[in-house]
């Protein structure tokens, strides 16, 4: 493979540089059209009627008054909704049952917003109110109110075992048990969900704010029983997603249903409150963990029981990742996951899926056992982490049948420790500090799959030598509309400025699911590299006759000029070749490469220095280092931006973003930004945050790249909890870390003196 040559690094012309995003001008001038900005003549305003019930059965629903209102063009209810489940979802676009407060029970399309809103009020619904349950452990009880006929548990418990944990604990020298809790947390975007549907006979076009146009297309085809060729999904500018837009959602189907019934295009724009209540938010986890170690500082046995609160509905994904089995060498591991439905809003994969929650649990636990044993937590980690060459499971099973390659977690830990000056930490947590402000340093490690999977692209080279790249996954702020053209420019030897990307259009590009799970750069990137190579092959073949019949093997292209190797003055411009050749089009669909035994992951380590105010309970982050493996960086500016942003999103979970439910009504009480408290520019000073790109190269990705979108969000909660412990000697096992929690823990600490670190 030509990649090998490029791996030497020295010859790269475009990749590895800091380049501005290719679509930056559109974004800074306000010209970029997000779905909500699109206007189609004759378009109607769609609105959803959201139920004020938490759990109820619809006895009757009368829409006649709404339909009679002048200006109303369509009203739909569960009776209109096809009985086709959404992606992995238990429910339909609209249901005859309300399973969370805020669930849509009807949709309206009208000539303007005022009419649509008036119509919503005219829909009369009679409910049979059912008891509700919002705590997942309550919901597991036989006596709990049932959301679904077959109960509240989603499938069987997911159990994964390696070795024998019970035996492992008896062999251990020390065993501790703890519980870590992450509540349901908001994880949406700044752009609220929005969709526009337009029918032309039995052909449907849907503009959506989605990460996954391909999945949306699949879903709409199933809903309306249409061939793939009849459904086109377009997601050009997407106001970020963080996973919440990676699964199919009811709004796309609802918009299409309304447009079909009204025979007019319909736009359904979510309000902020709707976006918070009805997207796929980050799920609650109750993580019960037991760990055993031996005196020789080795981790010996780990048993985890995790209860995941899926809320009313679920997408196919959702559960823990692989931290428990993949980060450390532990001979005996067992994880048991229960996925439980309750009457809170639907949840789904959001940045890291269950990894941040799992990382919080595991990395806090590792710190706690180290403290119990009097071990230095970094040394303990370095002694136990998996390194290149260590056995690791290839599939989802426990058995370690593969071999870990290109793993640099050790380097992440070492470089991060050096940068934060780890030796400054308190040898005895919480000790020796005078005055009300206590400082401490903590660490947390993480890992995840590097992304990839099937990818596809079509590349067109035009007569003047300009290039357009079509791919059906999306740029949700991740910069793929810049890095993928950079890969094409590098591979073909054309200037980046001559390459443009058209993303997120299922009709123009080969099928791809979408952009999620660290996948686009590797998966689509491989296809871009392959298709670019094919374009280059055709270009060189066409250039030969123009250069005294030089053999293509003797030709190369640089900066859009084809020349005979070693004879730079024998050359011809790409545009001249293309004028003679006409268009060149190449399509590539690539699968995940076969790697045999080899397993590649991507890892990272975070280090936090915090100051805890003993009197006010305030925690301030003074320094934060995020050291990551992402293979070879394709564009350092974009890489840093992703690392910095992802890191702050992880830290945000320590400050707020918990969705708070009223125990008596099941209503979410804080579905707005003021009360969810996403961080502002002042909360985590960006200057204290430093991202480190640890040198590495992937064996799988194009030019050695690995995906990186998810990982920086994982370790924040654990790194901060561990730093708070180091500062103040208090252990927080529930996020967010509120003033109330901290002041309470400090006062309990005072009343139980003699506690050793």
């Amino acid at each position, binding site marked *: 493979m030509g990649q090998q040559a490029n791996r030497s690094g020295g010859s790269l012309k475009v990749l590895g540089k800091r380049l*501005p*995003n290719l679509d*930056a*001008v*559109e*974004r*800074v*001038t*306000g*010209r*970029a*059209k*997000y779905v*909500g*900005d699109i*206007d189609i*003549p*004759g378009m109607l305003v769609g609105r959803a009627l959201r139920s004020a019930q938490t759990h109820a059965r619809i006895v009757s629903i009368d829409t006649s008054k709404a339909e009679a209102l*002048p*200006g109303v063009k369509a009203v739909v209810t569960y009776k209109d909704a096809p009985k086709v489940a959404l992606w992995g979802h238990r429910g339909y676009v609209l249901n005859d049952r309300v399973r969370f407060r805020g669930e849509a029970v009807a949709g309206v399309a009208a*000539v*303007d917003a*005022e009419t649509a809103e008036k119509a919503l009020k005219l829909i009369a619904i009679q409910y049979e109110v059912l008891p509700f349950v919002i705590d997942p452990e309550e919901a597991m009880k036989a006596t709990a109110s049932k959301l679904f006929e077959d109960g509240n548990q989603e499938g069987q418990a997911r159990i994964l075992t390696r070795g024998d944990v019970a035996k492992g604990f008896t062999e251990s020298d020390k065993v501790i048990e703890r519980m870590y809790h992450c509540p349901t947390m908001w994880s*949406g*975007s*700044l*752009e609220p969900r929005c969709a526009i549907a337009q029918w032309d006979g039995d052909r449907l076009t849907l503009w959506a704010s989605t990460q996954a146009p391909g999945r949306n297309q699949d879903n709409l085809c199933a809903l309306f029983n249409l061939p793939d060729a009849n459904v086109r999904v377009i997601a050009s*500018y*997407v*106001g*970020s997603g*963080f996973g919440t837009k990676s699964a199919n959602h009811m709004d796309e189907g609802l918009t299409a249903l309304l447009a079909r019934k009204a025979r007019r295009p319909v736009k359904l724009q979510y*309000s*902020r409150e709707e976006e918070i209540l009805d997207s796929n938010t980050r799920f609650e986890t109750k993580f019960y963990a037991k760990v055993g170690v031996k005196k020789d500082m080795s981790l010996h046995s780990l048993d985890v029981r995790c209860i995941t609160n899926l809320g009313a509905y679920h997408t196919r994904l959702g559960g823990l990742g692989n931290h428990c089995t993949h980060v450390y060498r532990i001979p005996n591991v067992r994880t048991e996951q229960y996925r439980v439905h309750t009457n809170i809003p639907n949840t789904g994969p959001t940045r890291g899926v269950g990894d941040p929650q799992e990382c919080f649990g595991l990395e806090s636990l590792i710190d706690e056992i180290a403290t119990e044993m009097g071990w230095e937590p970094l040394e303990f980690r370095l002694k136990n982490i998996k390194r290149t060459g260590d056995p690791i499971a290839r599939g989802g099973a426990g058995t370690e049948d593969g071999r870990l390659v290109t793993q640099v977690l050790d380097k992440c830990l070492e470089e991060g420790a050096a940068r934060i000056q780890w030796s400054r930490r308190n040898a005895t947590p919480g000790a020796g500090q005078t005055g009300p402000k206590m400082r401490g340093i903590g660490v947390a490690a993480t890992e995840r799959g590097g992304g990839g999977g099937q990818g596809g692209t079509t590349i067109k080279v035009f007569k003047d030598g300009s290039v357009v790249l079509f791919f059906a996954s999306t740029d*949700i*702020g*991740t*910069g793929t509309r810049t890095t993928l053209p950079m890969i094409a420019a590098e591979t073909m030897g054309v200037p980046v400025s001559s390459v443009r990307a058209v993303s997120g259009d299922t009709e123009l590009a080969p099928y791809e699911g979408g952009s999620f799970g660290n996948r686009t750069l590797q998966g689509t990137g491989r296809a871009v590299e392959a298709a670019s190579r094919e374009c280059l092959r055709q270009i060189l073949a066409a250039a030969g006759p123009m250069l005294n019949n030089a053999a293509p093997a003797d030709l190369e292209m640089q900066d859009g000029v084809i020349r005979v190797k070693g004879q730079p003055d024998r050359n011809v411009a790409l545009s001249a070749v293309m004028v003679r050749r006409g268009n060149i089009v190449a399509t590539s669909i690539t699968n995940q490469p076969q790697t045999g035994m080899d397993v590649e992951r991507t890892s990272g380590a975070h280090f936090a220095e915090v100051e805890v105010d003993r009197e006010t309970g305030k925690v301030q982050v003074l320094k934060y280092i995020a050291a990551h493996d992402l293979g070879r960086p394709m564009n350092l*500016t*974009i890489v*840093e*931006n992703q690392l*910095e*942003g*992802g*890191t*702050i*999103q992880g830290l*945000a979970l320590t400050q707020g973003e918990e969705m708070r439910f009223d125990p008596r009504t099941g209503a979410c009480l804080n579905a*707005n*930004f*003021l009360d969810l408290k*996403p*961080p*502002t*520019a*002042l909360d*985590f000073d*960006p*200057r204290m945050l430093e991202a480190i790109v640890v040198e590495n190269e992937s064996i799988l990705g194009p030019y050695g790249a690995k995906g990186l979108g998810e990982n920086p969000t994982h370790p924040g909660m654990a790194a901060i909890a561990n730093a708070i412990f180091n500062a103040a000697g208090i252990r927080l096992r529930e996020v967010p870390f509120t003033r109330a929690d901290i002041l309470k823990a400090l006062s309990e600490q005072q009343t139980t003196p003699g506690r050793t670190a």
Partner: protein
Amino acid sequence: MANDDREKLSVSRRAFLKGGALATGALSSTLIPLGPAEGADRAPEATDLDPRRSKIELKVNGVAYRVDVPNTTTLATLLREELHLTGTKVGCDRMQCGACTVHVNGRSVYSCTVPAVDAAGTEVLTIEGLAKGDTLHPIQQAFVEHSGFQCGFCTSGQIMSTKALLDRNPQPTEDEARQALSGNLCRCSAYKKILESVMTASRLSRA
């Protein structure tokens, strides 16, 4: 007006706007650009037929308009739906995100919560008013150079707040810059690159 009539009207207006004759078109019955001298300091007038609608005159990016909207209309909606200036984004509609930041009479405000009737007689500046033709404003240049965004949804607001800052304080410190932009959320948390962009913007604007 019956709903269906209004619908026709708005459709024809949309079609007309598509033609790009925004600044000069005398065809629309609800959107009449005015001469430069008019439009200033005028209170809204109730529409003859419906006291819950108002005729509003205002200037946006130097162009004067007269629109007739329901009193519930916000300035953000007026800009986006009546004038088709969709660079101003709405992320929360509650003064809680900053995506809708524009300048009214030189002050930065959340247009999602400025009643359109309150904006009557004012001069509004939006993101669309910054670039001169194809030449980006120095602040925009700086955001391009540093990738002061990820998804870009907050970017118009960040840039308008940067402009408000630099108009009053051309050479801010980093702390002043963070403070001045603390009314604009970036959910992607591109805060570090945004800060770099603001500092470069200050340099470029003074150059």
